[in-house]
């Protein structure tokens, strides 16, 4: 469903955020991307959402190579993908209902036509009772769930989420993950960037670890890398002068 082929992303300034990354997320899979800060998780998701384009390599989503998606076609492309953001990215000048309805309105539905789908989406995140409230009056976890409802309201086949639980306490995080799990059970392909290894392990999903823009070698499987890393750390300690 999501195929990353030998992708490099060099930001202006010369930093390589992704470095020949290749990975594949099967249809109906729920996969987590982990890695240290600056590993390139957000960059990867940005390339999938076509917020940015790869410097080289291919990003193929549901059979579409993003290289072929011209500027004019980006909106239609994005409408096929649900996106959840760490900072929710809600519109605070309108009630929850309107926020969730937005993707449908963009797709050309009237508010009334959107109503049933919006309520179904809000029901799935247990926020049906808050549809008339302004997002400002909601807790962070509730806002995140509104963001999720908005991402799934048009029933995308693919959902990507960048640290969706970054600001939430463990209980709320687990709840959000359970919601994702339920979407996955009805066939949605999910790719989620997260730091929360304990939570991921609890869910038992596949995990892709990034390090410095490429797939990380799992440490327990590579004692040499671990050894080198330790040597480097010691080396740094020795040369570090206050």
């Amino acid at each position, binding site marked *: 469903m999501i195929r990353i082929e030998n992708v490099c992303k060099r930001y202006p300034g010369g930093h390589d955020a992704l470095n020949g990354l290749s990975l594949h997320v099967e249809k109906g899979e729920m996969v987590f991307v982990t890695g240290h800060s600056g590993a390139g998780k957000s960059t990867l998701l940005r390339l999938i*959402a076509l*917020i940015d384009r790869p410097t080289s390599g291919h990003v193929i989503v549901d059979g579409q190579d993003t290289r072929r998606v011209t500027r004019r076609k980006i*909106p*239609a*492309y*994005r*409408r096929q993908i649900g*996106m959840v953001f760490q900072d929710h*990215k*809600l*519109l605070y*000048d309108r009630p929850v209902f309107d926020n969730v309805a*937005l*993707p449908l309105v*963009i*797709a*050309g*539905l*009237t*508010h009334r*036509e959107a109503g049933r789908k919006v309520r179904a989406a809000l029901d799935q995140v247990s926020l049906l009772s808050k549809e008339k409230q302004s997002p400002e009056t909601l807790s962070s976890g509730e806002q995140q769930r509104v963001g999720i409802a*908005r*991402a799934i309201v048009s029933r995308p086949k693919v959902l990507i989420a960048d640290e969706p639980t970054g600001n939430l306490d463990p209980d709320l995080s687990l709840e959000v993950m359970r919601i994702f799990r339920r979407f996955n059970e009805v066939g949605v392909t999910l790719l989620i960037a997260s730091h929360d290894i304990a939570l991921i392990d609890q869910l038992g999903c596949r995990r892709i670890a990034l390090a410095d823009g490429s797939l990380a070698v799992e440490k327990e499987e590579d004692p040499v890398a671990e050894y080198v890393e330790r040597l480097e750390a010691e080396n740094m300690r020795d040369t570090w002068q206050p």
Partner: protein
Amino acid sequence: MSAWAIRHISTAVAALGRLSRQPFASLMTVLVIGVTLALPAAMHLVVKNAQIISASWDNALDFSVYLRTDVTLEDAQRLVDIVGQRADIESVTLISAADALEEFREQSGFGEALDHLSVNPLPHTLVVRPGAANTEISIGLLNEELGNLPEADFVQVDTEWVRRFHAILNILERAIAIGTTLLAAAIIVIIGNTIRLDIQNRREEIEVTKLIGASNAFVRRPFLYIGVWYGLGGGLLALALVGYGLYALEEPVLRLSGLYSSPFVAVTLDLKESLIIAGSGVTLGLVGSWLAAARHMRRIEPR
């Protein structure tokens, strides 16, 4: 109603709602546009009324062709027939020297003194009234041709100033056209600038909307409607201002035309002109907001 129409109506209503949430700022913008539109509209009305008034003076635009004193009454009579056949002339009347003297005697009060004159010093005179189809230029030519008649001594147009007045009105009309163009450009700039600020203030909203798949046309639409509302509001306000101005002037104008014992009533904007003013408000609003959106919207992309 089609879904398309419903979408547009709801966008338009939403744009109006957004404006009404900042009533003061919105009204200021509408006020500026209204006054700017009212200016050329009022000037146009002034000229239009002046043209109506001066049209009634066109009757006064007669030529007096004074014939040489050696032209006999019979020759003068023949000349009347010849000149009267011209297509560009409505009528020719002959005032014989005797009639002229008689008239002068009655009006001047020199009756006694005139009796002592042995010869009539006055010439025969043709009063030529040009046809209504004449233009400034053809009137000028006619003047020249009448002067070149062998029998003519000289031609006098007492009402030269009417033509000057027409010329001035024409210049004024053109000046108003130029001024209107400039003011239209000013309105586009005003609306464009207001929309630009609005776009900047809603930058985040635009980014988010684009992020979840909105096209440029979709994010642009509310701003276009805001521009249209500004323009329509300005146009209607301009009509109200002009209407009020006429109302305020009605009494003095009546008093003035009473002094002239003329039945002049100032004409107001007719339906077509009113529609043009409101329509240009809407058009300028649309153009201004379109330009602003085209310039500033494209650059806002999700990061």
